[in-house]
């Protein structure tokens, strides 16, 4: 197993190197001059030339690439053209919002998805099974942003139950501590004695969580069901049943454990995909995360920011896939043997 892990780790560096290279050259090919974007349409040629020099845009492309690479290695992603701030700071400021939403969406999707998947498998070909699998198929066929808008329309506009967007009631004076608002809400409950921050953070999370979690939920339910069906046919399950062990125990104690192996992989992969799916969800719910930030940066042609944001998310995605792969070989002895 150690060999497998080392091999995967060894592939990490070239993959990340490839990601940075690909992003750099793709963005470098993009039309539009960053210097002009910075200065606006009214700038004169001399000013533009000066900025081009400051940004290093007057150098040959290959030299720019070398410079960029050497900075990325030192974890320096440069500065945003539009805000002038360090991209690293902009990302670390917004990333907790994205991660918080992704974690809740994934928790929601995993818990509900596994329960539905197991129930469908146990009651195969019943109406529960048909409804769940039909629902799952509808779930993966739906545009996420549309689901978000429909949820806002029903729960915010018609029923007036939940907020339409943002992370916290804007009228509250709120100083983030960890930037994970649920945790901040709990801390403030203790220090200030009022649960209102926690309640508001929770209310703001509900709709984006459902919107972002629906596709993974559907995929997890389907994976759990088919994996469960396969496991339930195994000899050891028959043995357990014939030994008179109660059905609930057979299903949840013996079958589910083994059936969850492929589900764990799917959950991991979906988590990585959520970060990029967040760009649509965050835009719909004005969620101040990294997805919305990249969306705005694209609109403003802020190429260093787009570059940095995409490298960051892709790196995160690669790392998650690596962790999932290693985790899988740890919990699945059959892979370890190979």
């Amino acid at each position: 197993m150690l060999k497998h892990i080392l091999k995967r780790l060894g592939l990490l560096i070239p993959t990340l190197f490839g990601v940075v290279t690909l992003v750099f050259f793709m963005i470098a090919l993009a039309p539009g001059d960053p210097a002009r974007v910075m200065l606006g349409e009214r700038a004169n040629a001399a000013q533009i030339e000066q900025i081009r020099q400051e940004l290093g845009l007057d150098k040959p492309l290959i030299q720019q690439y070398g410079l960029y690479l050497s900075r990325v290695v030192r974890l320096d992603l440069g500065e945003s053209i539009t805000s002038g701030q360090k991209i690293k700071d902009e990302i670390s400021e917004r990333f907790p919002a994205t991660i918080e939403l992704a974690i809740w969406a994934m928790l929601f999707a995993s818990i509900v998805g596994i329960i539905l998947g197991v129930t469908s498998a146990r009651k195969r070909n019943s109406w529960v099974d048909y409804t769940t699998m039909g629902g799952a198929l509808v779930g993966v066929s739906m545009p996420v942003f549309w689901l978000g808008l429909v949820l806002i329309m029903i729960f915010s506009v018609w029923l007036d139950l939940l907020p339409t967007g943002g992370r916290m009631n804007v009228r509250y004076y709120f100083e983030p501590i960890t930037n994970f608002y649920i945790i901040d809400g709990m801390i403030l409950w203790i220090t200030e004695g009022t649960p209102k921050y926690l309640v508001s953070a929770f209310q703001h999370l509900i709709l984006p969580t459902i919107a972002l979690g629906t596709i993974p939920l559907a995929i997890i339910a389907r994976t759990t069901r088919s994996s469960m069906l396969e496991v339930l046919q195994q000899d050891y399950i028959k043995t357990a049943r014939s030994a008179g062990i109660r059905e609930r125990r057979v299903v949840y104690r013996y079958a589910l454990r083994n059936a969850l192996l492929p589900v764990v992989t799917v959950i991991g992969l979906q988590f990585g995909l959520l970060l990029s799916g967040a760009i649509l969800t965050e835009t719909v719910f004005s969620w101040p995360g990294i997805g919305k930030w990249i969306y705005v940066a694209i609109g403003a042609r802020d190429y260093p920011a787009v570059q940095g944001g995409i490298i960051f998310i892709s790196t995160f995605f690669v790392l998650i896939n690596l962790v999932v792969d290693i985790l899988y070989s740890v919990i699945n002895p059959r892979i370890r043997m190979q």
Partner: protein
Amino acid sequence: MSEHTQLELLEIQEPGPWRETWYNLKKNRGAMTGLGIIIFFILLALFAPLVAPQDPLDQLIEARKIPPMTDGYILGTDDLGRDMLSRLIYGARISMVIGIVSVGISLFFGLIIGVVSAYYGGILDKIVMRVIDIMLAFPYILLTIVIVSILGPSLTNAMIAIGISQVPKYARLVRASVLAEKENDYVIAERALGASNLELMFRTILPNCLSATIVQTTLGVGEAILSSAGLSFLGLGAQPPTPEWGLMIASSKEFITNAWWIVTLPGIAILLAVLGFNLFGDGLRDILDPKMRS
């Protein structure tokens, strides 16, 4: 006696692979529903000018935001007084074209890269696989967004972006099937008979590697429709006043307080079309390639 049965066996003609698939498919209710939906949308797309009651771009100031089933507007009108039903019907045309063109791009390059890479193997295969791994290291949506923002936002560029970003998926799929197939006896026999490399790759091996690809292609059309709707929603795909479903949702955002149909209907159209391809693709998968069931 034994001679007799042998003769009888010989006389029963084996159905061809297409026939057999179709026979199995007909028994799969989900797949047939999916096929029905797909045919429905294709017909709508083909005959849009005949079916649509009005021009999808015709604005009528005095007929803005009319709710469905009033004043002869079956599905109502949008904020500029354009007939929703006609826009949705023309939207089918756009979405079908997007689905087919972008999957066509992925399929074309994916097939060539996958077959050549697996067939020749060696250093070429290694390099190709490395590049594919790197492309797969990007979350798919991000990759399309980057490509579109480079090429500039338009419907054509969205199709190209979606097509390119899915090439690795097809290439990997085809490569795996070709690798499994290329050492088979029939390939060696063909080679011994003097078939050229090109003939071997595309005439001998490829047809035997298509089942997984056909499934992926069907599901891919649905995925492409969803992605292009997402791109249009972000302003990176179709531009106004094109009646593209995703764009229709995007421009309806402000009306969720007073005109539910403008928001809801295009989404239902996307949902139905994608559902059709997913149902059909799932059915095909069950029949063509039982091992791929996830």
